[in-house]
Structure formats: C-alpha cells, structure tokens
C-alpha cells in the first residue's frame, strides 16, 4: 500500500509537467485559437538556460552568450523564465499573430515548424547530452511508512495548482482576461470596446511562456533534460488539453496531475509478476493515447461540429495534375538519375522516391480529404515491422510478405479512421500524434515485440533476380532503385486515377463541407474510411521499402519526429497535389536536397533547423501551402522542355 502511495507521489512530477504545459496550451488556444504543438519545445529554453547558468555562469540566449559568472538559483530561475517568455512572445508575434485568420492546417503545420526549429535550436545551443538539473524546490526525503519519496513532488503539485488558480483568476476576474475570452469569439467586438486584441493575446503568450518555463524549471530535476524528451512532453500535455476541451484550466491542471499519477502507477504495476511481459515497456507512453481516446469519447459531442472543419481556406486541389506526359518525364528523370548516380547519391535518389510515396499517403488523406494526420510514418513502421515478423516466423517471402505487411498497415489505417469519423482538424492531429508515440514506444521499441537481434529483412527476389539494395560491396544497387521506381510510378498513377474518378470527387466534396456532402447522398463515414485505408496502404508501401532499403529495421526510422517532418515536407512540397509529393520526397531527410545540403552546404546537423525555419516562413508567406507556386514552376519547366523538343505546351499543368 505504501509503495503504491509512493509511486503515486512520484508520478506528481511528470503530472505537474503535463498539467503546467496543458495550462499553457489551453491559455493560448482559448485566446488565439492556435493549438501550438511547439509549445513544450518553445518553453524548454527555460530549464536549459537555468541549468547552464547555475553550472557555468553563462547566460546562453537563443542568439549570443553572456558570461555573468556565478549566479544564485533565484537569479537563474528568473532569467530562465524570462528567456521562455521572450521566446513565447516572439513566436506569437512572428508566427501565430500573422496566421490568426488562416486555416487550422496552416496553423498546425506552422506550430510543427516551431517544434522542429526550437528542438534543433536548443540542441545546437546546449547539445544533446542528458543533463541533471539542480533543485529549486526543497527536496528532503519524505518517509511514508517504510518507503521514502522526494518531497519536491508535493511542492511541484502545489506549484502547478497555484499556477492554475492564478491563470484561471486572470481569465475570470480581470478585465484583460475577460476581454481575451471575449476576443476569442469576437475580435471586432473587443476592438469596439476600445481594446487591442493583439495586445491582449500577446499578454496571454507571455503568461503561457511564464507558466511553461517556470514549471519546466521546477520539474526538471525529476527527469533528465534533453531537447528531444522535453519537446515530446507536448504529447501528454496535448492529451490533457484535449480532455479540458482547450478551455477549462481546472481540468487541465487536475487532469495533468492525474495522468502523471496513473503513468507512475502503471510503471509500478508493470513490474508485478502477473503483468503480461509484452506490455511491460511503453505502457507509460501509451497512457496519453488512451486518455485521448477516452477524452474523445467523453467530449465527442462538444468537439467542433463538422461544419467547421479544417478545410477552411485549404489550397485548391488540381485534379488534372501530373498527366501522362509529365509522369513519363518524371520517370525518365529518375531513371537517368539512378543510372548515372552511384553510392550515396543513388541512395539519396532511392530515398527521395520512397519518401515521395510516403508523402503521397499524406496528399491523399490531408490534401484531398482535409484530415490532418501525423500517423503515416507510424503506419509505415507497422508495415516494416510486420514484414520483418512475417519473414522471421513464416516461409513467406517477397512479393507475398510485403503485401501482407501493407495489408496490415491498411488495416491499422482503417482503425485510425474510426475516431476520425467524429473528429477533425487539430483533434485528429493530436490523436494521431499520441498514436504515433504509442506505436514507437509500445511496439517499435518494445524488446518483447522486436527481437534484440534486430528486425532482419531479406533482400526481395523475383523470378530468381535479386532486387535487394545491397549485395557484397555494392550499397545502392540499381535493381532496387528500379523496383522502387516502378512502385512510385504505379502509386503516382494510382493516386491520379483516384482523384480523377468519381470517388475523388466525393473526397473533395467531404473536404469542402462534410454536411453538404452528406446532403447530396455521399456516405461520409464510408468514404473517409476508404481514404484512410488507401492512405495507410501507401504509407505501408513506403514502410516496406524503407525496410528493404535498410536491410534491418530499427525504430529510429519511424520516430515521431520523422512523422512530423513528413507532414512538414509534404506541406512544403504542396500537400494538395500529386507532384507535391515528389517535391516532398526531394526535400525529405536523406533525400536529394538533404544530400546536396549536407554535401555542398555542410548543413547536415542544421538541416532540421533550416527545414523548420523554411516551413514557418513558407506558411507565413503562403498559408495555403506551396502547391500553387510549385505547380506554376512545374508548368513553366514543362513548357520550356516541351518547347525544346519542338512540341506545343500541354494543357495539364
């Protein structure tokens, strides 16, 4: 019994983090309407600045460093929080304020750009080695019966409750707070009251920066500090914020603490003998996902109606993109690229093609149906791991085993579509993000489900021909490149056929207005399920190919960050067009642009920062996505080319 109590108290540490961050998310979402996936990454400057100051006396700012010598804990705390506040305010002013009237997709994508930027930026400034942060709160041991727990967890919980009460009081009892709530519904009305909505919102982002920065510094001693782990604290916090319907500070506060306690108790029970071994690892990371599902079940009725979908101001879809001639040209280009290249460059060409298939999966689900999904990489991972398991346990080989794997991914995609029937926009992004984390921690990194020897995958063979990527000293064989090319072209043509069919028309109808689509007899639920399944199958295909291209599968190919970056690059490439997927493949990590950037610009370790910045800037410059620009560029190139060969320009651009 004492042990259970001790674990519950220990859980208040991560609970306080989830609660504190959820309060920040609710604060900004309730005012500016932006759900900020980059929030945790944004305010994690605070613990890093704090830690560096207390240990070395150097004040490391986002830009520049000031040596201020030995610093008291209190000074370091104030400076750390101040940096988080400034970063938060700057993010609002530079990113979210200009985007406040754009689509949910644009805001979500921008916030993911913020996440990637901040994570890379903090890593550049402070390194990625885990840090042990010193205590601010009193930390004498507290004996509960025979068990001893650190006292700071109780103070942390208290701090987060006080913080929540202060923030709630601001919104309910001050004129500025009331006006902020009013502005979230009616910006003009607040202007007519003689107030500036921008200034009110800026104040809210200051509060969010303060709350998040403070809680992360106070709670940092309970968890080792790395840029990646603190960035991902957004996941449980988002789950809690969703439970709070992005409105209730009370639910955010108590829900966060409860989640931490439950996670800690799960850790405790998973050490018990009766607990199934396969569920021992990753249970803690699965908890937020379960919470999200529960939250949706409870709040389903109150979530945004289907009239107010993510589709507002989505870029137009070209149903006539990438016609026969363009596809032939593209095929030729890849073919030539495969033939003239070798070694790591050819590997980059192959990766580009695989990532184009992956992005195509997002083009279908997000571009055509308007559902923001962060799951494709996780679905690809499912396919990869199923492929490995099938080959390990059965006699099935290529081409049957990958088909089984792709079918498995499609089946999971079908399951993902079930919650998506009720939710849309940001909520779906949260569900799929939490699902992706669960898949990574619970499946891909679970030693019980993935053998310690690694997930070996044999080379694909067809009619006695080795289509594998490696053989002897050759690391990027053209045979595999050709296999990928064939599959890419088939996928491109398949998706083109899809969007030009009447089924494609129903997808677009749902994207623009679900209710209107239903009113003309479109079966919205069935169509969405079909689209999710198709999208998942494409992701599965990409996952299988990633498996073959690596020879051995590791969870590192299918991390949550990989999933975020696929959405990033697909948005940059043009999420509503088929050729956008090809652009996305070129931009993706290990693709051609990445190859060029690391080879010629030596951007390697900064690639994520540059990509994140590019994403934010491109969303700001063009909230409807880059597809229009890219399409224009593509049509110009094509006209130029066809003129060169003496042909008249084609109609399909």
């Amino acid at each position, binding site marked *: 019994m004492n042990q259970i109590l001790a674990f519950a108290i220990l859980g208040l540490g991560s609970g306080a983090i989830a609660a504190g961050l959820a309060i920040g998310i609710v604060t900004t979402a309730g005012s500016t309407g932006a759900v900020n996936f980059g929030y945790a990454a944004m305010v994690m400057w605070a613990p890093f600045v704090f830690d560096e100051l207390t240990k070395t006396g150097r004040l490391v700012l986002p830009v520049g460093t000031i040596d201020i010598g030995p610093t008291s804990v209190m000074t370091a705390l104030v400076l750390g929080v101040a940096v988080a506040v400034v970063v938060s305010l700057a993010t609002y002013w530079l990113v979210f304020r200009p985007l406040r009237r754009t689509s949910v997709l644009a805001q979500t994508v921008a916030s993911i750009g913020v996440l990637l930027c901040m994570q890379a930026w903090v890593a550049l400034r402070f390194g990625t080695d885990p840090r042990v942060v010193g205590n601010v709160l009193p930390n004498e041991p507290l004996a509960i019966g025979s068990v001893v727990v650190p006292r700071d967890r109780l103070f942390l919980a208290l701090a987060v409750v006080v913080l929540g009460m202060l923030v709630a009081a601001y919104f309910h009892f001050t004129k500025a707070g009331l006006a902020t709530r*009013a502005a979230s519904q009616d910006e003009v009305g607040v202007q007519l009251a003689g107030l500036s909505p921008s200034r009110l919102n800026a104040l809210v982002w200051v509060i969010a920066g303060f709350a998040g920065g403070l809680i992360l510094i106070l709670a940092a001693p309970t968890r080792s500090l790395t840029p990646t782990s603190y960035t991902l604290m957004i996941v449980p916090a988002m789950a809690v914020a969703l439970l709070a319907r992005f409105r209730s500070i009370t639910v955010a506060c108590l829900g966060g603490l409860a989640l931490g306690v439950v996670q800690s108790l799960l850790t405790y029970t998973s050490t018990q003998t009766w607990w199934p071994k396969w569920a021992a690892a990753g249970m803690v990371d699965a908890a937020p996902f379960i919470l999200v599902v529960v939250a949706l079940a409870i709040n389903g009725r109150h979530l945004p109606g289907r009239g107010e979908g993510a589709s507002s101001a989505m870029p137009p879809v070209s149903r006539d993109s990438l016609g026969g001639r363009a596809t032939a040209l593209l095929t030729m280009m890849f073919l030539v690229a495969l033939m003239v290249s070798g070694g790591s460059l050819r590997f980059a060409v192959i990766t580009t093609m695989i990532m184009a298939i992956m992005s195509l999966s997002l083009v279908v689900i997000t571009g055509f149906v308007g559902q923001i999904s962060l799951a494709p990489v996780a679905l690809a991972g499912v396919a990869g791991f199923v492929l490995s398991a099938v080959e390990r346990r059965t006699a099935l080989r290529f081409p049957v085993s990958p088909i089984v794997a792709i079918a498995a991914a499609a089946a999971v995609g079908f399951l993902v579509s079930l919650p998506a029937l009720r939710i849309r926009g940001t909520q779906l992004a949260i569900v799929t993000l939490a699902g992706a984390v669960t898949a990574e921690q619970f499946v891909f990194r679970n030693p019980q489900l993935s053998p310690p020897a690694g997930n070996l995958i044999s080379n694909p063979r067809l009619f006695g021909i080795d289509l594998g990527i490696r053989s002897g000293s050759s690391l990027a064989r053209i045979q595999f490149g050709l296999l990928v090319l064939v599959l890419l072209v088939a996928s491109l043509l398949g998706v083109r056929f899809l969007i030009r069919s009447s089924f494609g028309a129903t997808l677009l109808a749902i994207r623009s207005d679900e209710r209107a689509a239903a009113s003309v007899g479109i079966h919205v639920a069935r169509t969405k399920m079909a689209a999710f399944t198709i999208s998942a199958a494409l992701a599965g295909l990409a996952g299988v190919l990633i498996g073959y291209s690596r020879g051995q599968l590791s969870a590192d190919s299918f991390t949550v960050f990989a999933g975020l970056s696929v959405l990033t690059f697909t948005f940059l490439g043009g999420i509503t067009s088929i050729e956008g997927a090809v652009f996305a493949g070129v931009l993706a990590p290990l693709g051609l642009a990445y190859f060029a950037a690391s080879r010629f610009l030596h951007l390697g370790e900064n690639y994520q920062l540059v990509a994140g910045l590019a994403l934010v800037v491109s969303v700001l410059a063009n909230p409807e996505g880059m597809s229009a620009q890219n399409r224009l560029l593509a049509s110009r190139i094509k006209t130029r080319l066809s003129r060169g060969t003496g042909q008249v320009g084609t109609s399909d651009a």
Partner: protein
Amino acid sequence: MHSGGASLAVDALSVRYGAAAAVRGVSLSVSPGEVVGLLGPNGAGKSSTLKGIMGIAPVASGEVRLGTVEISGATVAARVKAGLGLVREGRGVFGRLSVAENLRVCARDQSPMSIDAVLAMLPALEPLRSRRAMLLSGGEQQMLSLAKALVSGPSVLLIDELSLGLAPILTARLMATVRSMATELGLGVLLVEQHVNLALGILDRAYVLRRGELVAEPPIAELRADPASLRQYYLG
C-alpha cells in the same frame, strides 16, 4: 457623455471591398443631442457607411472628424477612445461572458457613464447581471449591445439596425430609450434602420442613401406626414 459632446463630421467617405465600391463620397454630420437617420433600400451602403466611419470596413478615401479630432487613419480602438461608439447589426454580445462581464470589458475608466448608470437607463438588464449573454432573449441581447456601446462613453453613437429580428413593441421601447439619451445627455446618434416608420418618431434629421451615394436630405416633418413619400427617394 464625452464632456461637452463633440459633433461628428464625415467628408467624402468612400468604402471599397476589393473592386466593388459600397459607399461613394458620402458627407454627413451629427451634432450633439441629435438623432440622425441614415435611410435607404437594401444594399444602399448604410451599414458600410457606419463601418467605414468606425474603421472596421476598408475606407478608400474621405475624412472623419470627431469634434476637432481627425480620426480618419486611427485604429478602431483609438476611435472608441476619441468618443465614437458602434452598436453592430445582429447583437454583438460576448456569448460566453455574463451581462456584467460584457459590460466590464467595454467599460472605460474615462467614461462618464458608469455601468450602474447605464443599467439604470436599461432597467430590464439589471436582474440579468450574472446571466450568460448567450442565454438572453433577442431583445435583451440587443439591449446589452446598446449598453455595451454606452459604457465606453461615446459622444457620438452609430447604431446599425436596432430593430433587427425584434418585435415592433420592443423596438419602439428601445427607440424611446435612444431618444431620451440623446436629449438628456447630449449624445449624437446616427441611426441606420429598416423600419422607417418606427424610426421616424425619434429622428431630428435624415439622409437618404442609394447605391452608395447620398441622394437626399428630406425634411422629417414631410416624411412623418407621408411616410410613403420616402419611396420616391428610394426609387430615384
């Protein structure tokens, strides 16, 4: 309300939405204590004129002065501080906030009208102080909308469709309130109203707007005597 009561002068105001000109070169004035009607058929540009004066519609050209202060380029908030107020079409209330909270957001320290003073003028709102605005009836919301504009202490109040969706009896009551506020407090009012018959009773003067341009300034007495005569201005 604003000490002394300033008069509103609009000179050659034009409002454009993209290529479409909604208001073309409208000039008008409102003196303290005066209730001025802005009449005209649907789509004449009445609401756009008010929005242009207030700065929430894109103004292409023209000048707006309140007293001696030129406010043409000012932000909406600055215009409110200068003493201009707008009661929007369609009950602009903050639904999730209570009546008292709605008024608190709009109240300004410099305003000569306290929340209590405004509620004294609109006594029907008094017992509803703690009720959420979204739960009020249409008439109550319209009253709250008026009260919100009043607590910011305007010297000139622009009112867009006070009667929209209300029973005639309620509209008449609100009109009477507006009239008495203008007379007793020296508040200038520019009133856009579809229900001309209800409005005529409280107007001192009227402008007629058609296709974005001012076409007439008919004498009120004449309109009261024969409301149907207005039709000739509408049809041109």
